[in-house]
């Protein structure tokens, strides 16, 4: 693997709300390597956005970082003052948000929104910045950038607006790009175009990307590695092959089998119940109550991470040497078979 770009260790974050303390993140740890795309998947409320907002230093006032560190270039980002964070944001770590309708300023033309970043973060002179802005728009696939640079966000379609948001994020020439559900608000075909754009940019600029989504189809397309989050914790992390063809956590099984595939006959699998209330997280494994494969210990003690293969970890007691062996769902078995074939062929080391 490449060099480490960023490392999150034991990050524990809570929100102070009127109803009490909400445990948004519970001991989240992961490494991000240079040039890779790490996808974070999970349902709403699982903590994916809180994780990246902690990295960006964009947490709201009622947030308490209880524990942990975010190491970036031998520094802990959590120790940074607001001024230091301001320096990092945009120029070293940039972010793309979900909704291109609200993340652009409707009262400024798109050119000045890009030029602002170029002048502030890269100390460019006006003329140089205008030229660079046109280059960036061109790179991001906006036709006739010379003319359109003076237009306003409402004159662009949803997909084009997201391209402009990406151009703004690229303007600071960041090393790490965080994309928080960048395609969720878009149609399937536009989604495909935006993903192709992000992949192209990554290749050209050797960018490191954190890609947040709940769509496992999109993840299969973009990711090198995948972290699955549930109730404020990472429950499984590994390479895209490990997660899709050799998943170990029952929640990952549930996610993979609850999506319809073209050859599916009969009923769709549904994970029973709803995610737990993070104001009072249950004792033991937070997924235990929805887990058909839960063991008695799941209701008492949280499972640690078990190593499945190098760089593939899952937090489930099923991987404990003393755990009873269980029957894996049929659909997952098919995936395991595919995994074995890939190993035989030497496609996976």
């Amino acid at each position, binding site marked *: 693997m490449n060099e480490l770009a960023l490392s999150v260790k034991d990050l524990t974050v809570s929100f102070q709300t009127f109803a009490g303390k909400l445990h948004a993140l519970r001991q989240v740890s992961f490494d991000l390597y240079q040039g890779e795309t790490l996808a974070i998947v999970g349902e709403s409320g699982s903590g994916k956005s809180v994780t990246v907002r902690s990295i960006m230093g964009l947490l709201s006032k009622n947030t308490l970082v209880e524990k942990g560190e975010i190491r970036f270039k031998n520094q802990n980002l959590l120790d940074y003052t607001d001024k230091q964070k301001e320096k990092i944001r945009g120029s070293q770590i940039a972010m793309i948000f979900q909704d291109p309708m609200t993340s652009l300023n409707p009262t400024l033309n798109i050119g000045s929104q890009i030029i602002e970043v170029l002048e502030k973060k890269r100390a460019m002179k006006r003329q140089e910045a205008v030229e660079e802005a046109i280059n960036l728009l061109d790179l991001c696939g906006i036709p006739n950038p010379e003319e359109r640079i003076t237009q306003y966000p409402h004159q662009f379609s949803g997909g084009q607006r997201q391209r402009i948001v990406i151009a703004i994020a690229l303007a600071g020439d960041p090393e790490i790009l965080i994309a928080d559900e960048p395609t969720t608000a878009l*149609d399937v*075909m536009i989604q*495909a175009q935006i993903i192709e754009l992000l992949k192209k940019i990554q290749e050209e600029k050797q960018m490191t990307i954190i890609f947040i989504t709940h769509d496992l189809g999109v993840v*299969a397309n973009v990711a090198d590695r995948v972290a699955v989050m549930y109730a404020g914790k990472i429950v499984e992390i590994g390479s895209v092959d490990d997660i899709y063809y050799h998943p170990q956590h029952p929640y990952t099984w549930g996610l993979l089998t609850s*999506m319809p*595939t073209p050859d599916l006959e009969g009923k769709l699998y*549904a994970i029973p119940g709803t995610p737990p209330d993070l104001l009072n997280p249950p004792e033991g494994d937070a997924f235990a109550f929805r887990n058909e494969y839960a063991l008695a210990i799941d209701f008492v003690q949280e499972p640690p991470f078990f190593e499945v293969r190098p760089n593939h970890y899952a937090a489930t007691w099923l991987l404990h040497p003393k755990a009873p062996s269980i029957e894996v769902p049929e659909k997952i078995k098919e995936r395991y078979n595919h995994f074995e074939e890939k190993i035989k062929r030497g496609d996976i080391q």
Partner: protein
Amino acid sequence: MTVNVLKEQPLVQIKQLKQYYNEGTRKEVKALDDVTFDIYAGETFGLVGESGSGKSTIGRAIVNLYTPTDGDIIFDGKSWSQRQSRKSKLSFNKEVQMIFQDPYASLNPRMKVNDIIAEGLDVHQLVRNPKERTERVYELLEAVGLNRDHATRYPYEFSGGQRQRIGVARALAVEPKFIVCDEPISALDVSIQSQIINLLEELQAERGLTYLFIAHDLSMVKHFSDRIGMMYQGKIVEIADSDTLYSEPQHPYTKSLLSSIPLPDPDYEKERQRITFKPDGNFFNPSNQLVEVEPNHWVYQ
């Protein structure tokens, strides 16, 4: 899913339906442009297309929210103009119900769940006394996988999936024949989506319901529907049963849309080639129409 579809008995017939906005002005929008299709009793008809293609407009037109610019919507043998008296509107509303996309916006936050569900019962005078009303609400809550305690709560106390269940219970209260499901799962999380889809399937099997299922997630529509209509710019470009549409798409737009869907399979994703679709002059040729290329497979050409 196979339902015994009575081909000779369309429950809903959409005939050359046109729905124009700002008609005759510069800002004229042809939201629906000469749309014709049938929905048979007991089937699920899926309607797919990108935003702005007119799929929701069809759903709303069917539930009588618009006056058609031209064409007709025949429900159970009665044409649109025959259904416009106060009385027949009321009886129509008992037969046709709707489930909405956003479970947060579609429930009145000031009403308790039992009043939300029973509103239809009151309007159509389907219950004689408060006791019967409560009993009916309990039955409905249980039918959609909620429990009796939920009847006296307010919508804000529920999660998105639970609210959508309340929306389903409200639609079922008047025992309709036909339900328009307008993107009922797109606001929900993946693990909850399949719960709602399974619930709708169970209810259909139990009660012999007919669905119009509007969505942009083609994988889910394919799983849930018997037949699918593909929409593009206010026109239906292809209609076929769901397996055929998926395996042998004919219209270039359908091919393009199918090739854009990401599947949870990294090896397939590496190979997937996206087909792009640009409507050329041919697409807008006014003499184009839906042509039956093989039995029950219609393509706009």
